[in-house]
Each structure stands twice: as C-alpha cells, then as structure tokens.
C-alpha cells in the first residue's frame, strides 16, 4: 500500500508515493539518490544513518517515512551548503578526523545537532553527544578535537 507523503527535504518541498513503512534511509538513498546517509547496522545502533528531522537527531534506519509527513528533513547533502558545515568540514579535515569516512556524514550531523544545543560544548558533552555514533577506524580523539575546533572557529554561528 502506497501513500502520498509530503515533506521538506534539504530546504525544498518534496512529495513521494511510498509505503509509509518504508525506512526513511531507503527513501533517501533510493528515491532521492542521496547516498551520503549510510547504513552501518540497520538497527539504530551505529549512527551512520543520522539525519536531522525537525531539529532532532534521528536514526533514519529506524524511521518509517510515513512519520515525516509535513516535517523538515536535513541530510548531509542539504547541510553541506551551509556555513556551519564549512566550519565543521574544515575542522574535521584539520584534526584528521576522517579515516575510512563511512561514519563521517553521520558524525557531522551529530556534531551539528550537538553544536545547535551547546555552541561551546564541554568535553563531556561532546563525548555524550557522539556516543551514539560508532567509528571503528579512529580512536575518537580526532573527532572530539574536530568538534572542539569547530566550536571555537564557528563562534557565533550556532
């Protein structure tokens, strides 16, 4: 059974016909070819599929598309056109926080969410803030460093 579902995707209104139970992750990757959002586990445990829906950080692998009706969805592809992204990207690059990169888009979305909440997060807040995002390549140190760097550089942005 397919429904018409309307929502805002990366600042534009879109409409699709899909089963409301289809995972938002699949809708993004398959229906909109937005492959920046990754699947690492499909069960809400790794954060590779993190996106922002109506200001909240969600795992798109657990999110049925039916629930986004009327909501605002932000993925890495939309976020990358913002000045906040530029600051985060630079900081990630400088801190050397990108290794295989598979966790990176999700990590960046989690960082954005964190910085919106705490523009100057403490170490503890950063550790908590990205604890839902697994990275198997790094020791997380560089990622924490990157987020700190971004919060200093982007002073006033968040």
């Amino acid at each position, binding site marked *: 059974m397919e429904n018409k579902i309307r929502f805002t995707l990366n600042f534009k209104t879109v409409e699709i016909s899909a089963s409301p139970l289809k995972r938002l992750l699949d809708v993004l990757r*398959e229906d909109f*070819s*937005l*492959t*920046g*959002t*990754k*699947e*690492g*586990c*499909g*069960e809400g*445990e*790794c954060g*590779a599929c993190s996106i922002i829906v109506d200001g909240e950080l969600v795992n798109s692998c657990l999110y049925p598309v039916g629930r986004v009706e009327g909501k605002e969805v932000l*993925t*890495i*592809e939309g976020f*990358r056109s913002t000045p906040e992204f530029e600051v985060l*990207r630079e900081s*990630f*690059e*400088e801190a*050397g926080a*990108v*290794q*295989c*990169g*598979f*966790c*990176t*888009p999700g990590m*960046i979305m989690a960082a954005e969410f964190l910085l919106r909440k705490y523009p100057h997060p403490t170490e503890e807040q*950063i*550790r*908590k803030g*990205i*604890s*839902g*995002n*697994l*990275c*198997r*390549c*790094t*020791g*997380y*140190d*560089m*990622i*924490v460093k990157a987020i700190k760097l971004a919060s200093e550089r982007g002073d006033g942005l968040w």
Partner: protein
Amino acid sequence: MKEVNKSVPKKDGMGLTVGKPAYTEDLAPQNALTVKVLRSPYPFARIKNIDTEKAEKLKGVKCVLTYKNVPRNIVTRAGQGYPEPSPHDKFILDEYVRYIGDEVAAVAAEDEVTAVEALKLIEVEYEKLEPVLDFERAEGHPSIIHPEKEAHEMFPTGFNPSKNIAAEYHMSFGDLDKTLKKCDYVVSERYYTQAQNHTAMETHSSFAYVDINGRLNIVSSTQTPFHARRIVGEALGLPLDKIRVIKPRIGGGYGGKQALHGEFLVALVALRTGRSAKLIYTREEVFEATYTRHPMRIDVTIGADKDGNIKAIDMEILSNTGAYAEHALTVFMVAGSKTLPLYNKAEAVRFGGKVVYTNHTPAGAFRGYGAVQGNFALEATIDKLALAVGKDPVEFRVQNMIKEGETSPVFKIMGEGTEGVDMTVDSCKLEYCVKRGMELCGWKDKYPRKQIGKNKVRGIGSAIAMQGSGIPCIDMGSAVIKLNDGGFFNLMVGATDIGTGSDTILAQIAAEALGVSTDKVVVYSSDTDLTPFDCGAYASSTTYVSGNAVYRAGRKMKGLIEKAGAERFGVSKDEVEFDGEFIRTKDGRNSVSLSQLSTELYYSNKQKQLMVCESFCGEVSPPPFLAGFAEVEVDLETGKVDLIDYTAVVDCGTPINPNLARIQIEGGLVQGIGMTMFEGVKYGENGKLLTNNFLQYRIPSRKDINKLTVEFAESYEPSGPFGAKSVGEIGTDTPPAAITNAIYNAIGVRVTKLPVTPEYILMELKKKMK
C-alpha cells in the same frame, strides 16, 4: 624532506565528508538485481533435498543458485599470494553446510522485498549431523567437517581433514627441556582469546555487471582486488582476461575484507541474467557469516636465570579456524613469528601447534594477524616472570628485549606459511619507546597500584610489541607514474586504500621522490585492468612494499624529465636538474617549466609520453615496534574495570603522514582495547552466534575511551621509502597484555581469558578474600 613527514590532508577527505557517492553500495546501478542468501540454520548438515521451484516462479525473481547449478571448483577465499598457504576447502555452494550462517542458496530479484520473500519459498530438507562446537575436542572428533575428496593443501602445511586439522606446524632451536631445567625461574600460563569481529562500518558489499565487451566487472569492498580476480576466475572456471575487479572507497577493512564474500554470487548472477547484481551484507550477516579473529588457546612457558636473563621460551597453540581455513596456518604462525623475536637472547625456543576446524563462523585475517593473540600470552607471562624474578616488569623487558642491529633466529626459521628470511633489525628504537612511555604515563609514581578511595584501586601495566612490513620475498607492489601536459602526474597503484589513507601517503612518497608538491599527483588505485599489480592491503605492507615501488618510480620519472630537458636544451643529462617546477641547466643559462616541457612533449617538440613502472618485493620485513602502557581503575565492589589512560610510543620509522599514522595507531589501540574489555562473543548451545548485533556485541564508543596518548620515536629504516616502516597493525597488539597486566598490578588477579568481565574479576576477588 618537504612532502613526507607532513600531515597533508587526506586526498579523499573532502569528498567523503560531503557525502559524495563513493562506496560500493553508493555506486551500484539503480536497476541492479538484489541478491540475498539463504543461510543454514544448522551448525552441520547435509542438504538432502532442495526445491527452488516456488521461489523461481515468484514474480520478480530472476535467478536462484544452489550447489546443483553452480560450478564445483574448490578454492580458498583467502586473499593471499599464490600458491596460497590456506587449504582449498570451499565451493561456491556445497551440499554440506558447516556453520549456522553458511550459504545454502542465493536468490536474485528485482528488489529486496521479493528476494527475501523468495528465500522463504525455497524448501530444504537437511540431514542434521553432529556438530563440532568445542575446539579443544575437534581433533579426531567423529564428525569430519571436510569429508569432500577435492579438499587439498597447496604445499605441505600439515593439512589433515580426516582429523579436522586445517594446519599444523612446529619449530624449535636449542634444547628447550634442558635449558628450562637449568633456569632459576620458570613460569607457565594458559590463555584463551575470543572470536573478535572486525565490524567495519561498511558491511561487505559487491556488485557485478557484464560490460559492452562481454567482460565480467566486479566492484567490491575488497582489500585484495588482484587476488579476488584470480580466485573468482578459479571458482567460476573463467579465464582471467574475462574479469575486471574494481575497488572503490572502502568503509574500513582491518583484515575483514581480505577474503571473498559476495563476489562469486554477484558474478554468477550477472553472467546468467545479463543484469547487474548487488549483494550488500546485513550487519547480522557480517557477524554470522563473514569471519572473525581466530580464537586461540595459548600455553606459554618462559625461563630465566638468577639474574633475570630470559633463556627459554615455549609457546604452544591450538587455534580455531571455524568451518573454513582461511588464513589458518599463517595467522597461527604469526602468533609466534611476530612475538618471539622480541626476546631474542633466549637460547632455546619452541613454537608449535595445530589449527582445527569447528562448526563455527570461520576465522580469518584480522589486524595484528595472530600477533595480538601471541602478544597477549607472551607479554602477560613476561610480567609474571618479572615478578617471580623480583624485577620491575619494564626494566625486565628492557634487559631482555631486542635492540637495534641485532637479529633473532626466529626470523630465518619462520615466515608466513614458509621459511622466513634472515635479517638484522636496522631500526629499533624500542628502548626509547619504553623510556618515553614510562615518562608519559607516570610509571614511576603509579607502579604498581594506588588506592583511590575505599573501593577503587588503580593499577598500571605495560607490554611491548613488534609487527612486520609486508611478507618478504612473496608480496610485490608496483607503481606506474605518467606525466601529463600541464605538468601534473598520475600515480597508478594496485595498492588498496581501505580507508587508511594509503592513496595519500603514496602520493606524498611520489611527490617527494619527484620533488613536486603532493597536489600535483593524482592517484588511481586498485583496478585490475588499469593499475599495475599489488598484493593488496594486508600484512602491513602498503607503506613499505608499495611505498618502495612508488619511490623507485618517482626517482625514475625524475630522471626521464631531466633527460627530456637535456634533449630540449641540447646538452648532456648530467648538466640538467629538475627542482620540482623548472628544469634548468646547472650553469643557469637555460630553463623551462615542467608545465611547458610536458605540454611540448605532448604537442610540439620531440613528442612522447613519459611513463614509468617500477616494482618492489622486499627481501626483509623491518618490524615496527611499540611500547604500550595501560592505567586501569578497578571497582572492588562491582568488579568493573575502567581504562583511565593508554599510552603508546611507536617506532614506525619515518611517519610519512604523522596525522594518518596517528589515526592508524589510535584506531588500532581502540580495537585492541575493545578486544580486551568489551567484545565478548557468545554462542547458543546449538552453535548459534548470539552476539550478532551492536547491542549484544559492544565495540567501544567515545564514552568508553578516556585518554589516549600516542607519540612517535625518531627512527629511520634504511630500507624503507624515506625511512618508513609499517604502522597499520601494530597499534592493536599491546592492549590485551598491558591492560590485563595493569589489572594484575591493581588487584593481584590475572585475567587469562578475554574479554575481561566484571563477573570474573568479582569472582576472583572473592576467592582471594577467602
């Protein structure tokens, strides 16, 4: 050095951060068929009957594969040099299934829902067989896991399937029993390590299509594209000239993608249907049906004289390779060959054991490759011996460990599956690493323990480690450099960047050798049609082996540029110099920019393409070294252990890119920490893996890791590119021993079975109270 020993940003960093399509699944054609695999619910069974008719009739199903309709060629899926040291014991699909998760059949359908539906329609009748689930009872068990007559070894490796033995090896020098008898101090211990899963964030993925020339193209998240081409050809009975393997960006490997997984199936579907076909493993499939670190039982005995000089070492291993023997012999041998040389003054050394088959998920390559398991056992026993002798364990190590300019008889005796090579260690800053590490972690103040409040005790522990840099005399890497108009270069390498940053560091090595800046080098890697051969990303080989090939190619290209400049100026080559931007005569009279010269070479003057190819196959495998220090806090009430601080000082020669080298070490440490403290593996009674998701199988998250301190020693390996050795694996090796040594120093409990659990600590504490 301008371009190396410099943290230039990772070449693909920007593209990955913005989320560009880069990984296998991102690149699969939209209309690709989805392949799904029916997996065995039994640990050991024979398929009596399989009926696929209903599945085939389901709308949208394009192809169903079972053992009855696929080629029956026995191979090993292990991505290793040829002939492989792993026995050939795997068919694409077989009438026997040997673990819960083994492949029974595959379906290709228009979409995932249909494929999953079709799997349910396949009717299978199994004859259940008695499984072998306890690896200590596998040898000589009445159930023979590989009864097939085709199974064979490629050269003598101790393969004896009638006894469930996948490999066996023994070596010794000196008279062990006699030497031990003469020792004043002798300690022994038995250790067990678990089946750690790699859990790369990208699951194993591949897709295949037949191109316009009728050739099979496979895009795969593989660490070994050239081995993959060879093995697919062998399994499918296809000539190699009909196959191309391409590796896009990879979301982590750590050894977990050093064997074939979906490639056979997507290839067969593409060939049979003419459609592109993709197979993306679910996380559960990665846990249950790829492979793990080899679980081992390791017995170690070490003896020392009254002054604390180590005289004899004995290491005996029983390794569990699960249902298939990928990397069975070599991982087990590395447990000795990459640990025993650390204590090179021992007069008598014995190493040996067996690798057995069981009906569990197979084991295979995993960062550290046996050295982790061996290091845990050896370095924990060293601590035990130091205590017996009455010495500080770090000083005891320094007294006995290998030093620069020395050698070990083990190097010559043990290679990977074959004999090794004789070598002296020309760069070894282990002593510096140990001393610096002691300073950084505050050893003197903290050893052995400190009471923190009523119920908490802190302890500090140490371990040292070595690895290798490629497999000498076997693994080859090569590089092609091409000069383009406008004065930039293409570097084509078979070397496989699995997220490590090897494309970047190889570009840096090329740039340094050429004298240009790294951004003038555009890299293409790992396409079996377009790039020259490389064994692949394993055995810590890329920086050293591929790096040396790139270095040679860079030097040669520099010579060609100078020669072309000399021809242009009409002088001899010795009179010309290339400084990275301009080619000049030494007298300063003539000069031309590389950009102009290269454009002239294409279009207007003595036209030709400048291109070079160089190869490298190491004669030695210089080991990197690491000293690791762990500080733990043990809660005496709950048994919980927290890791407060981990310090590692590393000798990897020149770090080509210090930033990337640091992540390699940090990432390795955290995987070793995970293995020691978090990554428990549980099976149900029937052999079903229960820890098959991230909820059950917990890898460290940011919350679990406190402080990591990583430093590099100043070191220069004369045989390496610009002094570099490897850095990829060594980070993983020390945490099991250093952390368990720290726990012992804190509370006097020796953990000999990984991972450490609060229950165990509590139980042992209670025992001690009595």
